C-alpha cells in the first residue's frame, strides 16, 4: 500500500533515500569529506552519522584518489559504498580509479567481480565559484563504457534515482546541482526507483524539442513560458539518465517537431549535447531536422558576476536561440525585460 506523498526539497529527498537504502541493506555505507559535519553536504547527509554510527557514515582525509579506490575495493568485496564529493571538479583527482578501475573491473576480470558504488558529486554555480568549483563534467564519464551517469533535476527523481543507483551493480556517477537543493516536488514516502535509460517528456509541444540536462531542465521550462508568448510550442525533455541515454524518446519528439536544441549544464564540445545531437541526426537520417546546442560558453568559468552571467545558458538565451532556429527568416527577437524577469522568478514544482 503506497504511502502518501509529501512536498520535499531535493536535499530532503536525497537524505530520505539514503536513510531508506541504509535501513534496508547493511552493506550500504556513506563516506566522503564532510559528510558527517553539521552542514551535512547541503543537508543531504544530516543526521546520518548519528543514526547509523561512525562505521557506516564517516568523513575522510583529503585523499580523493585513495578514497575512490577504497570505495571500489569495498564494492568488489560486496559492500555498497556511496562516496560523496562536495564539488564535481574534485572528481578529476580520482579519474584514474574511476576510469581505469571502476569502469573496467567487471569486464577486465571476466565478470568475476562487480563494483556497485555510487559517486555523488555536486555541480557548483554562482557566487564566484569560479573556474574550479563550477564544472559539470558528466560528459567525461559518458565517454567511458562501464560507468552509468544520472542527473536528476527534481526531488522526485533525486530520491528514485539514488535508490536505483545504490541498488545497481555498477559504478554510478550521480550528478547533483547546487541550485537544485532547495527545489521542491511531491515525493512519496515509500521506497521507489526511477529507472536508468528512461527520459521524461516534461512538457509537450509541437514546434521544437528542447532537451535540458540537470538544472537546465528548470531553465528550459522558464524558456518554454517565454516562447509561448511568441507562439512557439516547445517540448521539454529531461533525459534524467545520461548513460544509458534514452534516445528513442528524444528522437520520437524530434521526429514530430523537426527541431532539436540540447541545453547542457556543461561545455558542448564532445559533451552530452554533442552526443544527443549526433545520435538523433544518425537515427533520423532520412529527414531534414535542425539541431543546435547550448551550454557553458567555451571559456573557463569567471568569477565576476558580470561575466558569470554570460557564461551560463539562461531562459532568455535559450528562448532566443530557439526562436532563431524555429523562425530562421524572422527579424531578431529579444524577450522584453519584464518577461525575462518574470521567467527567472517562476518556480517549478516537480516531479517533471
Amino acid at each position, binding site marked *: 500500500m503506497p504511502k502518501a506523498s509529501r512536498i520535499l526539497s531535493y536535499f530532503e529527498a536525497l537524505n530520505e533515500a539514503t536513510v531508506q537504502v541504509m535501513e534496508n541493506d547493511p552493506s550500504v555505507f556513506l563516506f566522503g569529506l564532510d559528510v558527517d559535519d*553539521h552542514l551535512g553536504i547541503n543537508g543531504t547527509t544530516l543526521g546520518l552519522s548519528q543514526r547509523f554510527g561512525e562505521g557506516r557514515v564517516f*568523513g575522510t582525509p583529503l585523499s580523493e584518489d585513495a578514497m575512490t579506490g577504497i570505495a571500489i575495493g569495498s564494492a568488489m568485496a560486496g559492500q555498497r559504498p556511496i562516496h560523496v564529493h562536495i564539488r564535481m571538479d574534485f572528481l578529476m583527482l580520482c579519474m584514474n580509479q574511476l576510469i581505469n578501475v571502476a569502469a573496467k573491473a567487471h569486464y577486465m576480470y571476466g565478470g568475476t567481480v562487480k563494483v556497485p558504488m555510487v559517486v555523488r558529486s555536486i555541480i557548483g554555480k554562482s557566487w564566484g565559484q569560479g573556474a574550479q568549483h563550477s564544472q559539470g563534467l558528466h560528459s567525461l564519464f559518458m565517454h567511458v563504457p562501464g560507468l552509468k551517469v544520472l542527473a536528476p533535476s527534481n526531488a522526485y527523481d533525486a530520491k528514485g534515482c539514488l535508490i536505483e543507483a545504490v541498488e545497481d551493480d555498477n559504478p554510478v556517477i550521480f550528478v547533483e546541482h547546487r541550485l537544485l537543493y532547495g527545489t521542491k516536488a511531491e515525493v512519496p514516502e515509500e521506497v521507489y526507483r526511477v529507472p536508468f535509460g528512461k527520459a521524461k517528456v516534461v512538457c509537450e509541444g509541437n514546434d521544437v524539442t528542447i532537451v535540458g540536462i540537470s538544472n537546465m531542465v528548470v531553465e528550459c521550462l522558464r524558456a518554454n513560458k517565454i516562447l509561448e508568448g511568441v507562439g512557439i510550442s516547445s517540448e521539454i525533455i529531461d533525459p534524467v539518465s545520461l548513460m544509458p541515454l534514452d534516445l528513442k524518446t528524444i528522437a520520437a519528439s524530434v521526429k514530430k517537431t523537426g527541431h532539436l536544441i540540447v541545453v547542457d549544464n556543461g561545455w558542448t564540445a564532445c559533451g552530452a549535447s554533442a552526443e544527443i545531437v549526433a545520435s538523433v541526426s544518425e537515427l533520423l537520417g532520412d529527414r531534414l531536422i535542425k539541431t543546435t546546442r547550448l551550454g557553458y560558453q567555451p571559456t573557463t568559468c569567471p*568569477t565576476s558576476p558580470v561575466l558569470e552571467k554570460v557564461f551560463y545558458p539562461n531562459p532568455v538565451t535559450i528562448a532566443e536561440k530557439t526562436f532563431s532556429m524555429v523562425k530562421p527568416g524572422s527579424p531578431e527577437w529579444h524577450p522584453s525585460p519584464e518577461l525575462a524577469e518574470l521567467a527567472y522568478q517562476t518556480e517549478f514544482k516537480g516531479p517533471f
Partner: protein
Amino acid sequence: MEETSLAARLYRSQKLIRRAEEEIARIYPTDKIKSPVHLSIGQEAAAAGVCEALQPEDIVSITYRGHAGYIAKGAPLKKMFAELFGKSLGCAAGKGGSMHLVSMQDGVLGASAVVGTTIPVAAGVALALKQRQEKRVVVCFLGDGATEEGVFCETINFAVLKRLPILFVCENNGFAIHSPLSKRWSTLDLLSRVKTFGLSCHDVPDGNPFVVYQEAAKAVMDIRRGGVPGFLNVAVYRWKQHVGPGEDFHVGYRDQAEYKRWVKRDPIELVGKTLSEKTRNVIDNEVEEKIAAAIKFAEDAPWPNQLETFSQVYA
C-alpha cells in the same frame, strides 16, 4: 628607527592582513563581494613571519586562504579588493575572485581552490629557477589538510631528489573545514615523516611570529646556499569560520576555550606590545589609510566588459 625594525615590520604586515580581512567581513553582508572568502584572521603570523624572511624577487605560492600571503608578500591591496569586488582592475581581471589571487610581478603565484594542487606547481617554479640558475627561492604555503593529498608526498620526494630551492610552509590550524587532525591523520608525526624524505624541518609550535621569522630566515638562507628543501610547520588558529565572514563556535565542532587561549596569544598583540604606542599608532593609521584607499579603488573600478568572458581562454 623603530618603525623599520623587525617588530614594526611584522606588526605592520600582520595588522594589514587583519584589518583588511576585518573589512572584508564587514563588507561581506552587503553582497558586494560575490566570492567565497576564506579568512586568515588569527593566522597572520605564518604569512607575515615567512614573507619577512624573503627578498622581493622570491616567490610565494598561496592557497584559496590566500589574502594573508598575498598581502604579506607585498602585492597591491587595491587589486585584491578590486578582485573580490569582481572588477576589471582586480589582480585577476575579475576572473579569479578571492580563491585565485595572483600577482606575478610581486612573486605571488596564483592560488587554487582545489586543495593541494599548488604544491607541485610551486615546485615546478622552483625547478625553473634551478634550471636557469637563479638564486631566488620559492615558498609554498599549504594547509594541514593539503598534506593528506598524495601529491604532497610525490612533490617533496621530487623536490629533494632535484634539490629544488623551495620551502614548504604548513599553516597548521588543526582543521580541514570542520574536521580535526585526529579524524584525518593516522599519527601526528608529520615532521618526522617529512624528514624521512630528506627535507630540513622546522617547527613553530606556538605560532610566535618572531620565531616564524627566525626559522624561515634560517631555512631560506640554507636553501639559497644550495641546501636541501625545507619544511616549516607553523601552528596557528583560525578565528573565523572555514569560509565566510562569521564565527562558528556555536556549531560545535571545536572548543571555544581553545580559541580563547589562542586569542590571548594574539600574534599581533604579541608583536605590538614590544613597540611603543606611538609606533603602533603610526602604523595603524598607515594601515587604515591603505585599506580605505583600496576599498575606494575597488568601489570605483569599472566592471569588466562582458566580452571579457571570452578573452584569455588561450594565450
